[in-house]
């Protein structure tokens, strides 16, 4: 099995772009990634695309291809909710490691159709009718269990949101980059959506796109010797293992995916220098970071109070603002998180740079439930 590297990454800014089409968003991310990698569209042998809510016929992958060029390559569309982007990466990884392709493009695109609650239509009718199928409610349930289990208050979630917005103020493509001086009080006093989560503790669902050129190392070394590839040490995709409390905290699925990812990469959580973790809501960052083993269960509050998870701290988390402030353009978030890790590991993260970052982790979770973890290193 061959070693796999990321040769280039590119993004379209996250935000609200009513005057653009999903094809536009995807084309921008793709051309930026190609330019970053020094690769031409004609060298791409396959496309793995992720999208979720975006209405696309026939498919998001083909929409993107139609905006870039009809080269006849195989196009695979991955629908795995928030896990879609890293699902595309895992397929690319397998195809390259297995010797099927040398150079592959992964792209995630999202243009959310509307504001307000989304209703996930696969949910039972009676849930939809009784108002319990609304997007994000599961995070409120998790947050309540977490507060009950570890005797923390929503102050912790407010602090996470403040950190997130501070990081986003250093991130040119983040949606909410103008709230770098947000305070805990402002977060707590924003509209309560579902207790304990206020508006500023919930990620905005927005538009965006992200792309990555993934390559076999041996090909990268020969064809693109001037580039600084980042190694994909492991990428793992899991769904929920049966548990009576499936979907609710503790997740179990995340810790299983993480364990497998660490084992395949030959490292432990203590080796992670920088991480992008699921923060669809502020409480999610704490829960996921603990499930990933970045700290012990219930310890995230201490980590936050020590400043450990800020840029400059011991284990910076969500250095680009994460879903919370960069935004949650569902199909695009996995590869956006990976782009941030790639920039960090290359030393190209500018004011967000984590000094000496050599090993990074990106994790996403989605309705499924699905969890994906990728570990990258230089």
């Amino acid at each position: 099995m061959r070693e796999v590297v990321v040769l280039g990454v590119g993004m379209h800014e996250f935000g609200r772009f009513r005057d653009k089409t999903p094809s536009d968003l995807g084309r921008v991310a793709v051309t930026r990634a190609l330019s970053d990698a020094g690769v031409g569209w004609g060298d791409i042998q396959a496309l793995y695309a992720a999208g979720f809510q975006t209405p696309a016929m026939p498919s998001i992958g083909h929409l993107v291809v139609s905006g870039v060029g009809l080269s006849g390559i195989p196009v695979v569309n991955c629908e795995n909710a928030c896990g879609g982007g890293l699902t595309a990466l895992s397929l690319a990884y397998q195809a390259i490691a297995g010797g099927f392709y040398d150079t592959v493009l992964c792209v995630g695109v999202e243009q959310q159709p509307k504001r307000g609650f989304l209703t996930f239509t696969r949910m039972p009718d009676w849930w939809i009718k009784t108002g319990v199928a609304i997007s994000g409610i599961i995070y409120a349930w998790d947050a309540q269990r977490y507060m009950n289990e570890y005797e923390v208050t929503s102050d912790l979630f407010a602090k996470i949101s403040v950190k997130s917005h501070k990081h986003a103020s250093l991130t040119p493509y983040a949606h909410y980059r103008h709230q770098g001086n947000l305070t805990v009080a402002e977060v707590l006093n924003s509209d309560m959506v579902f207790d304990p989560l206020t508006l500023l503790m919930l990620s905005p669902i927005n538009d965006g796109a992200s792309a990555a050129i993934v390559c076999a190392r041996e090909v990268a070394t020969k064809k693109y010797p001037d580039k600084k590839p980042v190694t994909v040490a492991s990428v793992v995709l899991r769904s929920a293992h049966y548990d009576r409390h499936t979907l609710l905290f503790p997740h179990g699925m995340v810790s299983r995916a993480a364990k497998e990812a660490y084992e395949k990469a030959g490292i432990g959580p203590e080796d992670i220098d920088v991480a992008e973790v699921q923060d669809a809501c502020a409480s999610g960052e704490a829960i996921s970071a603990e499930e990933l083993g970045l700290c012990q269960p219930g310890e995230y509050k201490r980590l936050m109070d020590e400043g450990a998870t800020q840029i400059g701290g011991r284990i910076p988390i969500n250095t680009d603002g994460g879903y919370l402030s960069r935004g949650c353009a569902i199909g695009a978030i996995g590869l956006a998180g990976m782009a941030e890790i790639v920039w960090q590991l290359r030393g190209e993260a500018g004011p967000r740079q984590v000094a000496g970052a050599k090993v990074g982790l990106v994790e996403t979770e989605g309705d499924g439930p699905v969890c994906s973890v990728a570990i990258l290193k230089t």
Partner: protein
Amino acid sequence: MVQKPPVPIEEGLFTVPSAPAEKPRLIGSKCRDCGEVFFPKTVMCRKCFTETTDAVFLSTRGKVYTYTVVRRPPPPPWQGVIPFAAGYVALPEGVLVGRVVFTGCEPEAIHIDMDVEFVLEKWGEDEAGHDILAPRFRPV
């Protein structure tokens, strides 16, 4: 005038009492091999992966496993009053029942581990004027 009998919001989730003294019962399934219980009822056992389940009535009382208070109106076809509390209930046989709306008290009064019991509540009416009943839990 003939009384219009109420209808459940979804078939197969619970029984609708036909007499005033009768209690409504949630319908789940139990695996013959491992004993795991599921709600709503399943054909397969999600733990054993075999087709070994039988339908069972579930306990009528349990404890709030988790909850939240929803403060913004969900989109149609939802109908109801804001704010409302909703979440999951843990029954003694180990199954988590969800997702349910809590009733019978102020939404903010609901808390984790609160003792609650299963009831039915009118959600709306169908085109023929029958009451549509939804599953709820209320403080004991």
